[in-house]
């Protein structure tokens, strides 16, 4: 310690002129408000000027002292003065760098001092944070890197060429691996790995700098050799480790997921599975999974989950199409902003070997809403190519050629729902704002339009509303009728799907949960829970109540709507409000014709009940008897196929406990 302290003190004394210069610069910064061209408050201008100059001093001194104090003395053998004393190599290295760091930090402090005193000993929290982060970066990062570079460049060894080549190799490997991970949207994993990698590399630079002094001593060329011998194996090893980690992350399978979310195709055996993979660093992963075979395709977990065509033969989804700034990802993991270009991808589920293929349909930012035709050949999207807050165009594309078939301007809206009536006919429901309503919610109405793709015409056909706030919209497959759940208005109404005319009030009043769907025979099934209990209500196609089936009596229950497992037989999930989530439900089979109910299992949740959330397609509801209606998630998060008639279960994906 004696040697370290003496060396550090000596370093500070030698560079005390920098401290004097910093104090003079601090006085000048404190006088910044006297300059006539500034536009801010004097206090803020002074503060900003002082911090800017302080950081410039910290960074500049870190670089200049880091690159000279040891390397120059080794190169001209003046370091022998210290090595000829009873001072360990570590104390020489540590004392020199600590002294340099103290000079840089002290200079920054002296720059700040006049402004700090004039500002009554106060700086804003933001400025303080910037200052601390900048100073820490300068001292912890710039100083050791400058020291290492000083050794390398002063040795003038031909090895410098090899160093540059290895640097380029390692940087390229790390950049490509980062790009790979980010491209796979494993952003959390990348961020954690990037931080660990940065710490490891910084540690390697620090250790290599020490090795250069400890093993090179008074020989600059040997110092360079010692530095390279330690640095490059660590750097290249870390790059290889990073690549192996990325490979491990990217090779995640559906079986690794915990707490999965499932969205089945309305027909066929394919489902979308997503969830976090705690055994693979916890990033979200997204798959298309064929439940009958267990085969899967991994997708980039981008903006929107895949949408299946109504015939269940195609899936379409969005992926980002450009690289991102690594630094922006470090500071803003919520990188999926609205300004990133996106591309649509398509996967013909019947032609698995071809795999997912990118289409040429691109947008400068993710569309607000989009839908595909029942055969999966056409895409309709509501978007604003200028990237504004509201989306003001609706356009229809042919996915195979990216040909724009039709487009039209639409009024500003707060939400949109699209569905193809036929491949040439598009129905559009636009949620228009009516201003602030009760409880500061935005009151809204639904404007209904239809686009004739061949005639390239957009015609408004009707309106629904007003509604008090956020809407849930359900239509039958042909969109001839629509159900609107107005949660804020506490009512559920049936409308004509084209004109918007209200046909019937299906439900009103306070409900804890409320949902509805159109059955295969055109009837309407509604589930709701209130203080008096949970029930299933059956309505005719024109909204006349036919049957009310009580499920639980009394308060404290919630009910979810599953699929139509056989014509007229629906699945509902009932859970206590105290239960952790829907997977802790009891599933019941309800005969909508007789009103009979039968339990088919506990600690289960129908996949259909979960898949409602976050959908833009109002007509989505699996066909009666389809595979989707037989898929359930159990309390462990396993995806299972349940035969309701026999009770036989087949595990498709084994669950993992929730992290």
């Amino acid at each position, binding site marked *: 310690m004696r040697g370290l302290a003496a060396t550090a003190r000596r370093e500070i004394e*030698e560079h005390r002129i920098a401290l004097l210069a910093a104090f003079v610069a601090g006085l000048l910064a404190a006088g910044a408000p006297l300059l006539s061209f500034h536009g801010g408050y004097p206090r803020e201008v002074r503060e900003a000027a002082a911090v800017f100059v302080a950081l410039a001093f910290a960074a500049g001194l870190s670089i200049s002292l880091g690159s000279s104090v040891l390397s120059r003395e080794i190169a001209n053998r003046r370091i*022998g003065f210290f090595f000829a004393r*009873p001072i360990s*190599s570590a104390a020489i290295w540590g004392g020199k760098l600590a002294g340099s760091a103290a000079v840089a930090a002290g200079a920054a402090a002296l720059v700040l001092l006049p402004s700090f005193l004039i500002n009554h000993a106060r700086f804003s929290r933001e400025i303080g944070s910037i200052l601390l982060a900048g100073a820490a970066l300068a001292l912890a990062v710039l100083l050791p890197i400058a020291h290492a570079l000083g050794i390398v460049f002063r040795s003038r060894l031909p090895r410098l060429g090899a160093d540059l080549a290895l640097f380029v190799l390692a940087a390229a490997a790390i950049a490509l691996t980062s790009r790979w991970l980010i491209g796979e949207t494993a952003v959390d994993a990348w961020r954690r790995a990037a931080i660990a990698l940065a710490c490891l590399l910084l540690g390697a630079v620090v250790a290599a700098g020490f090795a250069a002094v400890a093993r090179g*001593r*008074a*020989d600059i*060329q040997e110092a360079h050799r010692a530095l390279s011998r330690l640095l490059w194996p660590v750097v290249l090893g870390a790059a290889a480790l990073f690549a192996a980690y990325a490979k491990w992350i990217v090779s995640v399978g559906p079986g690794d997921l915990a707490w999965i979310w499932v969205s089945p195709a309305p027909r066929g055996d394919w489902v979308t599975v997503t969830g976090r993979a705690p055994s693979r660093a916890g990033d979200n992963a997204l798959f298309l999974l064929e439940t009958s075979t267990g085969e899967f395709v991994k997708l980039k977990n981008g903006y929107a989950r895949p949408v299946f065509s109504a015939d269940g033969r195609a899936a379409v989804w969005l992926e980002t199409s450009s690289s991102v700034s690594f630094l922006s990802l470090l500071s803003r993991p919520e990188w999926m902003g609205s300004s990133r270009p996106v591309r649509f991808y398509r996967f013909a589920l019947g032609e698995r070997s071809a795999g997912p293929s990118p289409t040429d349909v691109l947008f400068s930012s993710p569309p607000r809403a989009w839908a595909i035709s029942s055969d999966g050949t056409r895409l309709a999207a509501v978007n604003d190519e200028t990237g504004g807050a509201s989306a003001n165009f609706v356009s229809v594309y042919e996915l195979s050629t990216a040909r724009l078939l039709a487009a039209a301007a639409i009024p500003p809206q707060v939400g949109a729902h699209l569905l193809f009536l036929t491949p040439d006919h598009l129905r559009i429901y636009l949620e228009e704002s009516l201003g602030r309503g009760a409880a500061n919610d935005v009151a809204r109405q639904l404007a209904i339009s239809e686009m004739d793709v061949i005639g390239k015409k957009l015609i408004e056909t009707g309106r629904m509303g007003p509604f008090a706030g956020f809407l849930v919209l359900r239509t039958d497959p042909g969109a001839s009728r629509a159900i609107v759940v107005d949660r804020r208005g506490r009512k559920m109404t049936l409308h004509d799907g084209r004109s918007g005319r209200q046909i019937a009030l299906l439900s009103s009043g306070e409900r804890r949960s409320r949902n509805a769907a159109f059955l295969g025979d055109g009837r309407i099934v509604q589930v709701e829970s209130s203080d008096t209990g949970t029930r299933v209500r059956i309505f005719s196609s024109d909204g006349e109540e036919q049957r009310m089936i009580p499920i639980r009596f009394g308060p404290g229950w919630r009910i979810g709507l599953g699929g139509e497992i056989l014509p007229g037989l629906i699945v509902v999930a009932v859970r206590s409000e105290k239960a952790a989530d829907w997977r802790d439900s009891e599933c019941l089979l309800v005969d909508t014709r007789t009103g009979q109910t039968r339990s088919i299992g506990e600690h289960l949740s129908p996949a259909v009940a979960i898949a409602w959330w976050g959908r833009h397609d109002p007509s989505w509801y699996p066909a009666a008897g389809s595979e989707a209606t037989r898929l359930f998630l159990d309390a462990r998060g396993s995806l299972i196929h349940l035969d309701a008639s026999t009770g036989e279960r087949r595990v498709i994906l084994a669950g993992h406990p929730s992290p």
Partner: protein
Amino acid sequence: MNPTNASVPAAVESLTVRYGRATACADVSLSVARGAVYALLGRNGAGKSSLVRCLLGQQRPSSGRAMLFGEDVWKARARLMARVGVVPEEPDAPPAMTARQIAGFCRRLYPSWDQAGVDRRLERFGVPPGVPFGRLSKGEKGEVVLAMALGHAPELLVLDDPTLGLDAVARKDLYEELIGELADRGTTVFLTTHDLSGVEGIATRAGILKDGRLVLDEEMETLKARFRRIRYGNDRSGERSAFGTELDAFEAVRVRVRGWGIDAVVSNFAESLFEQFRMIDGVVDAEVSPMSLEEIFLAVVGEKREEGKNT
């Protein structure tokens, strides 16, 4: 002498130093006994400074070991330096430090620091204590470094060509200081130098490096006793059967043919041999003279062209 013996202040063992393909020191072994003044001589580039850096633990040998007080100096440099004073070839103190500041720095590192002694030496040398080291003359820098090297009463003093660039007065000061140190404390000294006449009076042992190899390592007394210059006339009119065989009894290091006769340097001089030599037929006016260290050095390492030419 066993180099791992703690009583041996300095030793190198099979020491080799390479810089790429160039070899600075090749398999050098030597040791410096306690109280000795060892002068390592050699031409520029002979490997002296590389050997000194190895001996001070500032450079790792390519092979072999450098030992101080029986310990590998590369491994235990910091501890061993507490017992060693160093005067480098180029005075290397930080240029901004004054002699007073350098002394203050050293005082924190050596428990046995003799500040009064340092002050006395600086005063004796006439070095201004408040002037930055970088602004001192070459001689003054050397004197400051010497004062600092002696400030903690080292057991071993290592000087790498300390008189390089010094004027006669500064050289005299330096040697007087060294002699005083030797007289007072019997400090062991290892020095390299080109100032052969200066060191001749104080060195007790000398080694000569030639092209990285230690070609001579001997006590000064025996060295000077066995090296002699022999001059003689060569009478060719006699019945001599062969020319130039009269020096066969000696190990002739160098032989020159002059107009007046032969000028030879021999390295195994003995009175008895010389008496026999004088009796050889054809050898006339033979006389022998002792040699200075410089003459011996020149004979051993210099004037390569003469070697073997006339012997």
